[in-house]
């Protein structure tokens, strides 16, 4: 007769290995060196945090009409609060800023609709990518439906930063995918074009591209064929970012095992179907950290537009710093700009982590 095997029951872990006490022991006090580092960190925090709180909150001035209204020992946030609208909208006419707000609310609502189950995701995506930009452009630029025209040279502040960042991201992503696929294709001409494009763009600093876009191109173009500076700068940013994006995505494509391509081929999927259905979903998922890295880089690189005379968030804050009423508020201005950029980039980073978790299917590479 066989002996029956009964697996032993699983027991809970001992109480010393879970809970906050165990966490502190493991992470902060696990070795003499670790204890020293913990104490040192606490000391640094003691040195820096109290004065910062005192300057930034306790002694700070929140309202006022000039630097003179602020205390000497605290931050002069009054500079930010009085100029807040300008930092948000640049030189956009203040009675028309509702148009920007409306467009912002609209996009938030549209994106929020993804969470509603009955909404068809494909149609919603098409609306956001194709229809929304037209509505937003009409709202921003005006001159139609009785809206007051606002020239793009008056667009600025956080509005311009977000606009440049979003359009740059949305346009450079598909372009980057095409460049990456082109660089790996068997067609010699397409391949050479992609390689030359990527290597040329990556070898040039963004500032150079900005100058080209704003100063050089108008010189070369015949009279009358001059198009908007904002558009030229946008194209410059997009192409620049697409070249980096292409290399990130190519890394992902190279990580997909040959067997995946073969299985897709063996089923009779055409090149584009096997790319969009099989290869890209896996490749893009692999390189989400790299893609977001490029997006964040692009978002912060939009600050360079101030070199060609456009006033994005950083540009408009610098401009405001020169106001004689507010001399000496540089730190507050930069701190505010840093906080806004940090909030956006941190948001993108968290969002990408959420996507990565959502796409995790527990697979191992084979």
């Amino acid at each position, binding site marked *: 007769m066989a002996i029956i095997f009964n697996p032993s029951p699983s027991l809970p872990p001992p109480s010393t290995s879970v809970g906050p006490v165990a966490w502190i022991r493991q992470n902060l006090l696990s070795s003499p060196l670790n204890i020293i580092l913990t104490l040192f960190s606490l000391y640094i925090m003691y040195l820096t945090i109290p004065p910062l709180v005192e300057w930034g909150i306790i002694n700070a001035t929140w309202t006022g009409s000039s630097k003179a209204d602020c205390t000497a020992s605290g931050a002069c946030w009054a500079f930010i609060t009085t100029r807040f609208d300008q930092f948000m909208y640049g030189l956009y006419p203040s009675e028309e800023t509702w148009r920007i707000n409306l467009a912002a609310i609209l996009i938030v609502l549209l994106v929020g609709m993804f969470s509603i189950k009955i909404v068809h995701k494909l149609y919603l995506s098409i609306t956001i990518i194709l229809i929304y930009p037209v509505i937003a452009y009409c709202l921003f630029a005006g001159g139609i439906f009785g809206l007051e025209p606002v020239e793009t040279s008056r667009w600025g502040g956080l509005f311009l930063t977000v606009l440049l960042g979003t359009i740059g991201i949305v346009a450079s992503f598909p372009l980057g995918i095409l460049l990456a696929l082109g660089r790996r294709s068997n067609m010699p001409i397409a391949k050479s074009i992609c390689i030359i494009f990527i290597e040329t763009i990556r070898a040039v600093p963004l500032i150079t591209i900005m100058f080209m876009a704003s100063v050089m191109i108008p010189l070369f173009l015949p009279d009358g064929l001059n198009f908007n500076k904002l558009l030229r700068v946008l194209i410059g940013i997009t192409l620049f970012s697409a070249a980096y994006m292409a290399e990130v995505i190519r890394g992902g494509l190279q990580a997909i095992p040959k067997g995946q391509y073969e299985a897709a*081929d063996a089923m009779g999927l055409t090149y584009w179907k096997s790319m969009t259905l099989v290869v890209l*979903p896996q490749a893009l998922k692999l390189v989400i950290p790299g893609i977001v890295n490029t997006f964040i880089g692009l978002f912060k690189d939009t600050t360079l537009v101030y070199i060609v005379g456009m006033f994005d968030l950083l540009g408009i804050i610098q401009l405001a710093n020169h106001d004689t009423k507010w001399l000496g508020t540089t730190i507050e201005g930069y701190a505010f700009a840093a906080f806004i950029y940090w909030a956006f980039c941190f948001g993108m980073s968290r969002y990408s982590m959420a996507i990565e978790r959502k796409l995790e299917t527990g697979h*191992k590479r084979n």
Partner: protein
Amino acid sequence: MTNTNMARAQLASGESTIIEFNDVNKWYGDFHVLKNINFSIKKGERIVVCGPSGSGKSTMIRCINRLEEHQKGSILVDGIEMNNNLKNIEAIRKDVGMVFQHFNLFPHLTILENLTLAPIWVRKTPKKEADEMAMHYLERVKIGNQALKYPGQLSGGQQQRVAIARGLCMQPRIMLFDEPTSALDPEMIKEVLDTMIQLAEEGMTMVCVTHEMGFAKTVADRVVFMDAGEIVEANEPHAFFDNPQHDRTQNFLSQILNH
């Protein structure tokens, strides 16, 4: 069993040729991997291809659906010549299912989506119909209850059975197996072989590269032995195993059977 064997033999002899290799040659760079392959497979036939590694057996079956390109000679599949014409290649790939050594399931799709991908996007089957067909084949390989899991959550043997079901979902006329059990743990080999035997009994044309000689003995109509890019010997399993003609075949069989 003898009845089915006879019926099978009749089927094989009476039906037309479905795969034909005429003087097929292939090189990897300077390496001559396939040398003058002349071989034809009839409809409903079960062919097992064996041979030492590097003998060109995988390359040969991968030429059938043009995962590999041959450089000389001609290959006809179902009357269609394999050449650079993309239309021909697509037409043949629709009709030829393939199972790989490493399964090659799509890890980002559920089992069900893996099965319905090709029917929906290549055959344009409506989704509902494709789902039903996929469930039917999943039941047949006995993993209907795993349909909504991802490949990474299944064992190797289960994944390979899914891969077989995925091939069947295109309702192919030919199934190619490229060492389907070589990457599996011993206790999982049987479940995959059982599925393949079942398929063989239903009259599918099968070309199978494998080292499972037991499978070759029970299922194959002919066993093909390849070495150094050539077909050395091809015969019915009975004659092949009991009375191999070439010394190279004898040598190979003694190595893999006596251990």
